[in-house]
């Protein structure tokens, strides 16, 4: 930036304003970590649950879901570390964070309410998860994530009517469509620095 007292034309002022405002857009790369991390974790849990139910006599196949607990800690640790490194806090970034925090709280409440029938929780979790996914897609203007959110809702409806035997498989498909595919697309986005 040149000498601060240099006179500017209106065009120069506008150029500076536009250039600076464009630099402050939310860095979407931080979102791709969570999509891929949670996408893979829940995909592995749900598919394992499905395969164990289908092909083994294991008494409690849903125990694989306990992997979610260390997952929450890994997520929190990552969030803490990236938060410490961050040199800037955007409104979109804060909104993005609180939407997902809200989902985490709602999901915890749902788990408590449904604690006696955890085997029936999948359609409701997909229903809840669709909302932050859908809104996040709009915040970062990323259509695959918006479509991912819609996929969650369609699959929530689909597995609800298909019955409990399809819950785990439906959840695995939802992870592919809602988190993993948009997550990898986000990661590999051509204009990878800022969007």
């Amino acid at each position, binding site marked *: *930036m*040149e*000498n*601060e*007292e*240099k*006179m*500017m*034309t*209106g*065009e*120069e*002022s*506008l150029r*500076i*304003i536009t*250039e*600076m*405002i464009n*630099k*402050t*857009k939310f860095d979407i790369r931080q979102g791709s970590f969570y999509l891929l991390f949670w996408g893979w974790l829940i995909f592995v849990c749900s598919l394992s649950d499905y395969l164990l139910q289908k092909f083994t006599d294991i008494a409690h196949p849903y125990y694989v879901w306990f992997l979610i607990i260390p997952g929450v800690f890994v997520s929190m640790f990552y969030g803490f570390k990236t938060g*410490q490194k961050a*040199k*800037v*806090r*955007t*409104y979109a970034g*804060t909104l993005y964070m609180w939407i997902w925090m809200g989902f985490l709280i709602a999901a915890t409440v749902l788990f408590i309410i449904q604690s006696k029938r955890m085997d029936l929780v999948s359609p409701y979790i997909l229903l809840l998860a669709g909302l932050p996914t859908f809104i996040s897609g709009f915040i970062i203007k990323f259509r695959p994530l918006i479509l991912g959110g819609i996929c969650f809702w369609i699959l929530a409806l689909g597995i609800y009517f298909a019955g409990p035997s399809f819950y785990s498989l439906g959840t695995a498909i939802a992870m592919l469509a809602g988190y993993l595919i948009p997550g990898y697309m986000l990661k590999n986005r051509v204009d990878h620095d800022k969007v």
Partner: protein
Amino acid sequence: MTRFKELDPILHSQLRLAVISLLVGIEMAEFTYIREQTGATAGNLSIQITKLKEAGYIEVTKKFKNNYPQTLCSITKLGKQKFTEYVNDLKDYLSPKQNAK
């Protein structure tokens, strides 16, 4: 070339306008981030940030992060209001009706 001496003199300077334009879209930013984005020298930026702070356009908070000093800047309500006024004034100056005079 049209000159704009009538515009808010606090904002009508390249670096101060850049700082305010950067801060208007975010909650807060570190001094080093502002320096990277504006390409200004630390000394010059420090002077301009002080001017903006004294005018009440921005708020400056000093903290420590990992034992290193950290300067955080955020725009104030007055800063947002002045920025909006500046942009509106700029629009008036740039409108064909005004330029034709």
